[in-house]
Structure formats: structure tokens, C-alpha cells
């Protein structure tokens, strides 16, 4: 039975790889066109206990190459028990339109919606408090909105703390995700508007703002934008720098939240599946879900197999000499004990490695090659397990933490 899952997972993974290569072949490097008109932009920074982070984001905003009178900055401090508000207030002198809301309630979506209802910009950017923006970001992003059908534009995410071990492993992932999003946007199948996206404010208001209850409001709003018939574009030239979790605890919390948020959102928007109105994502999403489920099952089997092998090694290690001998025996016999599915894995590994390399070039994210084997094998396997954790958490209704 598991063999069927393995073959199915390898087929679907090859399918997505090929699809991305095809989109890559069709992709033409676009350069942003210059627009003279400078609309007013509101940047909303929802933050909770972000006294140590908010300075970074506000400092980078103060260096934005954009007219000060066309820029509105709102810090939506929600449920803060630290000095976030006073730290943010210190940056008031750098901006013409600057407000800090000290909100008594918690929740990113709720805080964002509160600020959205009170802001004056034509475009709204939701900016995470652990992020730094590049000075010319708006100049690169705004031309995409010339097309009236574009509802949101997503810039690239680069990793700020790339020197940390866990962050360094995530570099190929962020490079691939960035460029894959760019490719998906080409067929109007970009289905997420992560923190740091710029939206048309009138569209957001018409859609009722962010969903305040799901864990991934950025994914949820993206589906509503697509369902409303708008496009989500990706701006490869525009870059924001974010601090990714570099501790296991932080990483676990983030990935679990993302996976749970995905399940919640898909449960809410099941109608997207096979929905022609949602565009290509209506066809791709079922495949993504099937691949995620199969990959999770395969990962459980792989991890189970690894645990078994480790147990075997421990048993053999009870006699050191026997361990050495058996290893010798096993290595010589390895060539005979491989499953033919290994060839599909080799194909995937080659396609995946080349793709990551291309993505790193296109996104200008410098890879740390030493971490690639960990990323391609161990990291990918662990990631898929989060679907299982999230499914359990949702099934048993564990507390939802942002």
C-alpha cells in the first residue's frame, strides 16, 4: 500500500517541478515601468510586544525613497504589555503622517482591520514588525497597480538573519518560494499575500478586511481577492528583509500556525477547489492538497523507517565489532537492496537542486551550499510532518496561537 503512496507522491512532485520549469521557460524578466503619479500609501504595522523589533521596521520606513506627505505610517500595537508604544512614538519625527494605536485587544487581523478603517492611503501595506523594507520598494511595486485588475502586489522576502544555522537552512526554501510565487502569478495562481503585501485599499474594504479568526489571514484574504476576480502579482524586483525563526521553538510555532491556518482557510473556502472563477488555483489547489497529504504519509513512513534503522544500529552497536562488520556487509549489499523508486527520487533531486539554483539566481538570494543536503532531505521531510501536527491540532481543537 505504502508503495502506491510513494509512487503517487513522486509523480505529483515531478508534476509540480515540471510545471515550474515550464513557467520558468515562459517567464520573461520584467522591469518595472516608471510611473509619475505618487498615490498615498498607508503602511500598517500590527505588533504585539514588539519593542525590540518595531524600531527596525520604522527605521527602514524612514529611509523610504517616497514623498513624506504621501506616506502614512500606523503602528497597531495590540495587547502589548511592554514598551512597544513608547518605542514607536520615538519615530514620529521621521514621518509626516504617523499614528500609534495602543489597542487593548490582541490579534493581527483585528489590529490591522482597526487601522484599515481609519487610514487615508489609496494603497495599504501590511508590514510585519520583524521586517525591513528597501528604500525603493514602492517605486518598484506601484507600476503593477496600473492594471486595474491587480488587487495586491507581493514583494520578495529575503532573510535578514541568514547567519544563524536554522535560518541558513531556510534560504533555499525562501528562494524557491519567492520565485515559485513569481511563476504562479504568471498564471494568476498566486494564492497568498504574505505580510508585507501592498493591497488596493478600496478592495480590502469591500472584502471586509482581514479574517480575524483564521491563523493565516494572509492566505485567506488572497483567496477572497482571487474569488473576487482580481489578480495578485509578484514583484521580483521589490525586496523586504525579514527575520525568520532561528530557534526550534519559534520555527515550530510558525510552521504549525501556517499549516493550521492553511487547513482552516481551505475548510472555509472549499468552494475554491475546482472553481473556474478562482482561476488556475481552482485546479492547482486540489493537487497541492493531495500532494501534501501523500507527502505527509510518505514522511511518516520515512521517519518510521529511519527510527527502525537507528534501533537496528543500536542493537548491532551492542557489539562494536559486529556493527562494523554488518555495516561493511550492508554497504556492499546496498546496491541490491534499493527500491526502483530511487530513480524517481534521483530525478526529483536533480530537478529540485537545479530549480533551487535557478531560484537563487533569479531572486538574488545567495545560497549556502553546505546546507543544501539538509534542506533537500531532512528539512523537507520534517516540514511535511507539520500537516499531520496541524490536522491533529485542528481535529482536537487545540488552542490557536498566533
Amino acid at each position: 500500500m505504502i508503495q502506491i503512496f510513494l509512487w503517487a507522491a513522486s509523480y505529483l512532485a515531478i508534476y509540480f517541478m515540471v510545471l515550474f520549469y515550464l513557467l520558468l521557460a515562459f517567464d520573461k524578466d520584467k522591469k518595472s515601468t516608471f510611473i509619475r503619479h505618487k498615490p498615498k500609501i498607508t503602511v500598517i504595522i500590527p505588533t504585539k510586544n514588539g519593542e525590540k523589533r518595531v524600531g527596525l521596521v520604522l527605521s527602514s520606513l524612514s529611509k523610504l525613497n517616497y514623498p513624506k506627505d504621501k506616506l502614512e505610517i500606523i503602528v497597531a500595537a495590540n495587547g502589548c504589555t511592554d514598551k512597544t508604544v513608547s518605542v514607536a512614538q520615538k519615530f514620529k519625527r521621521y514621518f509626516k503622517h504617523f499614528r500609534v494605536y495602543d489597542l487593548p485587544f490582541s490579534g493581527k487581523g483585528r489590529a490591522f482591520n482597526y487601522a484599515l478603517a481609519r487610514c487615508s492611503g489609496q494603497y495599504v501595506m501590511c508590514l510585519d514588525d520583524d521586517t525591513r523594507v528597501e528604500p525603493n520598494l514602492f517605486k518598484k511595486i506601484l507600476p503593477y497597480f496600473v492594471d486595474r485588475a491587480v488587487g495586491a502586489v507581493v514583494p520578495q522576502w529575503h532573510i535578514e538573519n541568514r547567519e544563524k544555522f536554522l535560518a541558513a537552512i531556510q534560504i533555499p526554501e525562501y528562494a524557491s518560494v519567492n520565485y515559485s510565487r513569481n511563476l504562479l502569478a504568471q498564471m494568476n495562481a498566486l494564492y497568498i499575500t504574505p505580510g508585507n503585501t501592498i493591497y488596493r485599499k478600496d478592495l480590502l474594504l469591500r472584502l471586509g478586511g482581514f479574517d480575524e479568526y483564521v491563523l493565516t489571514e494572509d492566505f485567506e484574504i488572497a483567496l477572497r481577492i482571487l474569488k473576487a476576480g482580481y489578480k495578485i502579482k509578484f514583484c521580483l524586483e521589490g525586496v523586504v528583509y525579514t527575520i525568520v525563526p532561528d530557534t526550534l521553538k519559534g520555527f515550530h510555532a510558525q510552521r504549525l500556525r501556517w499549516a493550521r491556518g492553511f487547513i482552516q482557510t481551505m475548510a472555509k473556502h472549499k468552494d475554491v477547489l475546482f472553481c473556474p472563477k478562482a482561476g488556475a488555483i481552482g485546479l492547482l489547489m486540489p493537487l497541492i492538497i493531495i500532494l501534501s497529504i501523500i507527502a505527509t504519509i510518505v514522511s511518516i513512513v520515512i521517519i518510521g523507517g529511519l527510527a527502525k534503522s537507528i534501533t537496528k544500529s543500536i542493537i548491532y552497536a551492542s557489539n562494536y565489532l559486529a556493527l562494523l562488520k554488518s555495516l561493511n556487509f550492508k554497504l556492499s549489499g546496498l546496491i541490491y537492496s534499493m527500491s526502483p523508486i530511487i530513480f524517481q527520487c534521483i530525478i526529483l533531486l536533480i530537478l529540485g537542486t537545479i530549480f533551487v539554483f535557478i531560484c537563487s539566481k533569479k531572486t538574488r538570494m545567495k545560497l549556502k551550499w553546505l546546507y543544501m543536503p539538509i534542506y533537500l532531505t531532512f528539512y523537507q521531510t520534517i516540514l511535511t510532518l507539520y500537516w499531520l501536527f496541524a490536522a491533529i491540532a485542528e481535529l482536537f481543537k487545540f488552542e490557536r496561537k498566533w
Partner: protein
Amino acid sequence: MVKPIRAMVLAFVLATGIFACGIVVGQAYDRAKTEHFTQVLRSQELEFQNFLTQREFLEIVGENDCNAKQLLLNDLQYKTRKLGAKLQGAASSSEFDRERIFYIRDKYFILEVQLYGAILAYNKECTPKINTILFFYKKDQLDSLKQGAILDSLNEKFNNTIAVFSLDFDSDLDVIKMLKRYYGVKSTPALVINGKAYEGLQSEDFLLEQLS
């Protein structure tokens, strides 16, 4: 903008092609593996036939070269054991040539029993006797795994002169069923040491005691 349906259909066609290539290579690999084991098994069967013929001839002419027999038997049982270890992995990983690889594995079990019989015959007429162990195991059973490791370690201490024959307890082969019945083996792991059966996991010290 790229037409989504066109890209997805084209991706389907190309992915199916690439996937099919992987299957073709996988099939060729499985076939090459089976071919390799067929060759090795044939050559071992030939060696065994050679041994039996030599023995028969020496019996007819009234000579009994125990030393030569012992050397040949030791060599044969070592080679057979080595083949078995590889064959076990190949049988569980084969996808496209399962029937043939299972057939080869069954032939290997039969060869093991033939060799075991030849050693028993040798032990009746020659000294020093060759220690024999029949090891009945169950695939993926933790205790069977532990017993296998203990036997490997033990044989190492005896310079690979103990004739260990590993037999799959769940095999449908009549000859294995017959051996189980003959020695009264009902559970795994089970060892038949020089004709005496012991069920359950046995320690290395216990085995050393039985063999000394």
C-alpha cells in the same frame, strides 16, 4: 499571461514522460538485480553439485578426505550466507520482478537445506565436526533481528566456521515446514544448535556454552 490550462496539460504530458523514464530505468535495474542473483545462485548450485559428485566418487573408490570436505563445506556455507544477506534486501525492495526474485529466494532456501544435509552427513563420518545452527527468523521481528546480530558476532569469533542457515519461518516451502515440524519449532526466533532446538532469544554466552 501564461494560459493555465495549457501549462498544466503540458506539464502533465512532460511529467508523465519523465515519470515513465524513471519506471523504465527502475525496471531495468530490478531485472539486472534478478539476473545477478540468478547467476550467483547458479554458480553456487554448480559448486554444490561439484562437491556432491566428488563425495560420491570418493565413497565409490573408498577414500574419505575429511579435510578437503571440511574446507569445501566451510567455503560453500560462507558464500551461501553472504548471498542470503543480499537476497533478503533485494526481495523486500523489488517492485517489478518480485515473482522471479521470490523464486530465487526459495531456491536459495532449498540450497541452504541441501547444504545443511551435506554437513550433517559430513559430521557423521568426520572429525572435527562442523557446528551447525538453523536459525528460524521472522522478517521485521525485533528479537529475530537481535538474534541475527548475536549470530553474526558469534560466527566472527569462530572465524566464520559455524554453519549458520537462516530460514524464513513464514516461508511456504514444504522443506522449511518439514524442518520446523522435525525440530518442533513453533515460534521465533528459534535456533537448532547441532540438532537441538531452542526457542526465544538466546544470548551469546548461552550459544558459546552450547558450542564449546
